[in-house]
């Protein structure tokens, strides 16, 4: 009989037990989780992956080529997706491999959690080629650091600036806007100005949370604070600077002091935005927002208020030091009380299946197809809010039938090369019910036994 602690540690905090993992965790699982916090987060192994700067430099050049070709009547629109899609596939495959192979699955789950918190989505231009480098460059190195550093790195990354349109945002009284205004006198063209998108989502999604105490005035003012936060190598007014890298454009920055959330910030150009972000990172509403999301992810869809309170206090007390917050999370009794309190997302379900069955992530054989089939394409949540994190968002009838059908196809592929009856206690540990054990033992074939293992109620949840 496996201990409940190791089962919860591997399946809820980790990404699903691998054969032998529960036995090696031993104890109550908490030490195993704490030990994963000790060293720098692991980088992805694949040296072939290109940096954001390389991808975006090439993509901008291609985009110009496409525009020129269009002027001469050629349709080469497909060139950009043809360039970006292979990058997406390599990146998502490398991430999948890491999730399946890692022996620090808690860190990998946290990485995925934070990428989803600062979500970009591949259904917007360029993002298919940038989502992977965004995660590797902005998120992954900082998941064991300070939240404030993570916040600034995420907002300054070109993927985020492009995803939420900030690279074009221009202060209405900036030199650029004034010049454009003079030029456009008498014609119908509106001079460039601000775009609220990034400013709003930083406040609503990344820091304070909706209802966190900001107003429309704060949104608009904060958007002017980060005017000039842009990406090098674009078109026209946005051409200067190293292609594909963050640049601050002083000419597009709204001049003067600004008041956000009642505090006045002097104009120090680029620094003005960093100062606001630093204050946002330490705001009590941010602590509560992050605590709620962590508790929802690791405890329950509707997390116990006491646990949220404890995490929020830790977030504030330790000045946003994330490992300290994780230690409090690990020590939170509520996280260990409901063994199967969370319904797996498709990503959880797929990754835990691959880990549990020791399936290879084979880059040559469409490794991303399961994500497509089961409805959670990597890095494509479709909105800056990221993927939802409650059972009701994932437990649809059709979604369940697809998991079962996929389990059956996996079983068919493996045949008798895996023994579901032997694997069941190693994957499900203390959660394994007698009903599931009996059903697997009595299965008519190895395929059917595998289908039953992966479809079992205790494998659908974590």
């Amino acid at each position, binding site marked *: 009989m496996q201990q409940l602690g190791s089962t919860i540690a591997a399946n809820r905090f980790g990404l699903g037990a691998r054969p032998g993992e529960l036995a090696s965790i031993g104890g109550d699982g908490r030490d195993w989780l704490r030990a994963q916090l000790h060293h720098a987060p692991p980088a992805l192994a694949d040296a072939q992956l290109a940096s954001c700067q390389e991808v975006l430099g090439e993509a901008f050049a291609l985009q110009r080529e496409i525009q020129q070709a269009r002027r001469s009547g050629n349709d080469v629109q497909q060139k950009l997706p043809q360039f970006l899609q292979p990058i997406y596939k390599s990146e998502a495959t490398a991430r999948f491999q890491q999730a399946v192979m890692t022996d620090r699955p808690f860190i990998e789950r946290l990485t995925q959690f934070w990428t989803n918190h600062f979500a970009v989505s591949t259904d917007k231009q360029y993002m298919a080629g940038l989502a992977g480098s965004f995660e590797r460059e902005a998120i992954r190195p900082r998941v064991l650091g300070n939240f404030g550093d993570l916040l600034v790195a995420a907002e300054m990354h070109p993927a985020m600036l492009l995803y939420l349109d900030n690279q074009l945002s221009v202060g209405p009284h900036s030199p650029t806007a004034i010049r454009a205004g003079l030029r456009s006198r008498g014609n119908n063209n509106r001079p460039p100005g601000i775009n609220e998108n990034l400013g709003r989502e930083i406040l609503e999604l990344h820091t304070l949370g909706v209802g966190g105490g900001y107003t429309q005035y704060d949104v608009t003012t904060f958007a002017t604070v980060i005017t000039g936060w842009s990406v090098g190598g674009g078109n026209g007014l946005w051409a200067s600077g190293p292609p594909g890298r963050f640049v601050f454009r002083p000419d597009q920055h709204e001049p003067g002091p600004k008041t956000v959330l009642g505090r006045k910030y002097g104009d120090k150009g680029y620094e003005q935005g960093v100062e606001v972000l630093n204050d946002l990172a330490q705001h009590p509403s941010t602590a509560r927002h992050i605590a709620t999301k962590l508790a929802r992810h690791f405890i329950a869809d509707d997390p116990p208020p006491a646990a949220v309170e404890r995490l929020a206090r830790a977030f504030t007390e330790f000045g946003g030091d994330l490992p300290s917050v994780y230690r409090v999370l690990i020590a939170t009794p509520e996280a260990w009380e409901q063994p199967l309190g969370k319904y797996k997302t498709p990503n959880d379900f797929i990754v835990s299946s691959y880990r549990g069955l020791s399936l290879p992530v084979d880059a040559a054989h469409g490794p991303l197809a399961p994500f497509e089939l089961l409805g959670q394409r990597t890095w494509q949540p479709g909105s800056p809010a990221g993927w939802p994190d409650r059972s009701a968002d994932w437990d*649809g009838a*059709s979604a369940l039938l697809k998991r079962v059908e996929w389990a059956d196809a996996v079983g068919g592929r493996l045949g008798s090369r895996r023994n579901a009856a032997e694997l069941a206690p190693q994957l499900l540990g203390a959660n394994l019910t007698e009903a599931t054990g009996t059903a697997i033992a009595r299965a008519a074939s190895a395929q059917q036994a595998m289908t039953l293992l992966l479809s079992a109620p205790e494998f659908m949840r974590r």
Partner: protein
Amino acid sequence: MTVMQRREFLTAAALATGGALITSRLAFARTAAGGRRSRFVVVILRGALDGLAAVPPYGDRDYGRLRGEFALRAPGQPKGALPLNGFFGLHPSLGFLGQSYAARELIVFHAVASPYRERSHFDGQDVLENGTTVPHALQSGWLNRALAAVPGEHSRDAGVALGQNVPLVMRGPAEVTSWSPSKLTGLDDDTLARITDLYARDPLLSVRLADALMADRVATEQQGGMAQDMSAAPRVAAAPNTAPGQAAPPPANQPPAAPAPGGAYAETVRAAAGFLRQQDGPQVAVFDTTGWDTHANEGGAEGQLAGRLAALDKGLATLKGELGPVWKDTAVLLVTEFGRTAAINGTRGTDHGTATMAFLAGGAVAGGRVIADWPGLSSRALYQGRDLMPTLDLRCVLKGVLDEHLGIPARSLEATVFPQSERSRALQGLIRA
């Protein structure tokens, strides 16, 4: 037992374990006043569709100033709007809706908004779907609670969500299902029976599996209908009992899905029509569309938004074609969480706003009208100096449709479907008598 009979038996068994008593699928069939069996489709436009672009008020004297280069011109002019009533037009990409209006099968609502007055997409969508005035006030949706309030016997799966999961608007006490095409081979009956058994003590999974099998059966009965059109794989039919180590294509080798012929929404609307065409199938269908959050380079008569509107319009035209004779009994409601700023922003797009438009289309709709108490677009008329001012509560529209089209009793509309909405009276005469 033939395969089909056995599957029917399994479905019934699964339903029984799900804890519901099923008498007959005819239990789905309900009729509104007048003996007609109504169908209702709800399309959620996620991301806040720009109502001033979809339904341009070209007759408003402030409109051109606010919209600048993207202002749509009056009907008849180059790249002009499609005609509605001499003041409002339709975006030129909405050709099918324009025809529907002319055929008196479309009502356009304008300056309409849910009770939500902030500018978060996600809270806005929550209020749009939960039917209250407060985000996250309820974990169920108004459409589901309306189905639960249908007088007479309760039935399963009166509603279907096209997609793997069910959006909030359709979640709640009434049994509903979801359906999406499968690219995998179906399960053999023996395995299915064992899984049904394994789920017997799990209240969530047993119900979900039963619902999925029910939807699958309804879909498969559409011989030559959507199953064929969509390569939806007649999964319920002869699935051979797979021997160990054999058959079942490796999921890893699946090629990525090819784009559906007939536009972005073709697959979804064909599936919806396939369900709704059935005399004893679901009566209500819901699906999502995205891509309406046009912060930058929105475009005017042509461009980004124009392309998305054209795809939506084409999807609606396909829906009408696929519904065939059932179209005359159908109402299709298109709603979004809120509108966008009245003026173009500094990056040739629009930011989050307040009031917007809604569409009610279909053969059952008493159409050919624009319903709007137009607040104007002068600086003083705008909400908080920036957005179209709401003058119509969207719940008035929803209540009117649910009352006249689905026959939901007024007391249920007030008590459970839209709690605390008594001041927002149902609009009358939206549906043909």
